[in-house]
């Protein structure tokens, strides 16, 4: 019986640990104890409210990290258990806070910001993982989408979700940086070396540089993938513009912070250059996508790769059409305009592309107005004059003739 029981237990253990990594329990306990010891040392050397907040956050993280090993730690730690270990650490931190004379409200505010940072950091990580999966889905579906309607629909859903996620993560990364700097409530130039080191450490721990780089790289990957619609490109251009302006807000702070660190200064420069690559790629994709949109609907312009060229070639194209109005039958001209109006102008170019191009600085407002004016003139040139207009003109002429006739009749002669 005992043997059967042993075999059963053995089977259960085998099943449970078949795929589990074979880590030494002692190693886990040792690592935990070392981390706790380190936090005690940090507590002893804490000098500012930020230090205390940070240690508290680190203790929280440690507790979460080892929660699943609580049973092992409860048995292995001696004389304290898992819970008691953290209780002691937090008590020590509270004493340290009192010793430093930290105002409680300030501590609470910074603790909340730190929690916010922690939450944002977690969200960034989970979004990064989700995006990775969506990217793979997108690649997989792109191959089969052309032949399969269901796959095409799935692909559109994936693209839309991925685009939303990329946007959200970009926002989160910058919110994270903002919240980190907010904790210090002062300019980098006014910070002490300890404060700079502390924020430097936090940026490192939250992988801010990696996060920003990853955001740009993922956006680039997304852009380089196939099957994006003009709307997607327009949204990407908007996103690129927003990211660039947010980075411009953050990069001077980071550059100030890393004045003495060549490695980090290089990181800032690397992000700058990545962002330039992304912006150029967005620019190129934008004009290519716009060209495709026009040519697919029969509007073939001379090649263009910037706002000036686009405005010039577009208005030139329309001017030519307007000038040639007499050479084509009216119905053909009207049909061409209506196709342009329905498939391009009203649905894409005017409501989506032009605002985005202006917003991202690729077109000026004057250029936008010029394009709109050109389209209006084309519209006027192809619109036949309404019968009502003729009727009004005839009525006007008749009224004038009648008026004149009556005037001449009423004039009395000298004999009368």
């Amino acid at each position, binding site marked *: 019986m005992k043997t059967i029981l*042993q075999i059963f*237990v*053995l089977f259960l*253990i*085998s099943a449970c*640990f078949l795929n589990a*990594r*074979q*880590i*030494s*329990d*002692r*190693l886990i*306990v040792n690592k935990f104890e070392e981390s706790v010891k380190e936090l005690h040392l940090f507590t002893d050397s804490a000098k500012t409210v930020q230090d205390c907040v940070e240690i508290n956050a680190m203790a929280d993280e440690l507790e979460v990290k080892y929660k699943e090993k609580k049973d*092992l730690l409860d*048995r*292995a730690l*001696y004389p304290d258990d898992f819970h008691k270990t953290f209780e002691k650490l937090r008590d020590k931190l509270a004493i340290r806070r009192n010793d430093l004379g930290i105002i409680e409200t300030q501590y609470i505010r910074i603790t909340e910001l730190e929690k916010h940072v922690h939450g944002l950091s977690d969200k960034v990580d989970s979004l990064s993982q989700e995006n990775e999966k969506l990217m793979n889905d997108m690649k997989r579906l792109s191959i089969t989408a052309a032949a399969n309607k269901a796959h095409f629909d799935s692909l559109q859903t994936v693209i839309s979700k991925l685009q939303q996620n990329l946007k959200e993560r970009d926002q989160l990364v910058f919110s994270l940086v903002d919240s980190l700097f907010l904790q210090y409530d002062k300019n980098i130039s006014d910070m002490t070396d300890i404060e700079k080191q502390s924020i430097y450490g936090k940026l490192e721990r939250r992988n801010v540089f990696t996060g920003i780089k990853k955001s740009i790289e993922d956006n680039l990957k997304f852009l380089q993938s196939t099957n994006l619609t003009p709307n997607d490109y327009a949204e990407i251009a908007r996103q690129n513009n927003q990211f660039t302006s947010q980075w411009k807000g953050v990069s001077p702070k980071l550059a100030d912070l890393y004045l003495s660190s060549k490695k980090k200064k290089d990181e800032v420069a690397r992000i700058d250059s990545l962002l330039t690559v992304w912006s150029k790629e967005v620019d190129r994709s934008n004009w290519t996508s716009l060209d495709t949109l026009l040519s697919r609907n029969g509007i073939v312009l001379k090649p263009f790769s910037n706002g000036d060229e686009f405005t010039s070639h577009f208005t030139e194209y329309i001017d030519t059409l307007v000038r040639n109005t007499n050479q084509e039958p009216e119905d053909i001209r009207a049909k061409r305009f209506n196709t342009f109006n329905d498939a391009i102008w009203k649905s894409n170019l005017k409501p989506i592309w032009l605002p985005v191009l202006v917003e991202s600085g690729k077109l000026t407002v004057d250029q936008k107005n010029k394009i709109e004016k050109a389209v209006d003139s084309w519209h006027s040139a192809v619109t036949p004059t309404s019968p009502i207009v003729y009727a009004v003109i005839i009525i006007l002429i008749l009224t004038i003739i009648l008026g004149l006739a009556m005037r001449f009749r009423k004039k009395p002669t000298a004999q009368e």
Partner: protein
Amino acid sequence: MKTTFCFLFCILAFIIEGCTPLTLRPADFSWPIEIVAAPDSSGSIQVPRYEIAFNSKPLFFEELQDSTHVSQYTLHVVRDQNGYYFMTAKNFKSVYVFVQGEGTLKLKKKITVSEKGLEAPAFNQKGLFIQLVNEQKENEPSILLSNDGIQEGEKK
């Protein structure tokens, strides 16, 4: 006749019960995690948490034929639920199972677990068994041991 038989049976039961030593069960002697300790120059190993001390020289001599440089080694020791002590160290080819005696630890079983010698051994408690893992190779299959020998896994 039947009454006499019952009477005798009861007396016999009382006698047997009286002769059996008092047993407390269940009892669990397991240590939650292994102890890694380096012997001093005399080979003595002290485990303050469990308040045991023993001379490890004969063990090192048995395995490595070296009892002069024992302080250079670290011994991994763990105790299972039944109270057996499992011991091994880096470069050992075997795990030694000891049982507690009067002021002694007596070898109960020598389990050969490796042809070349263990690279970075570590013991884990796994219920009724002791798991032997390689600390440096997390993906290497572990060996489950009991005081009778290898229960699951293969020699390295």
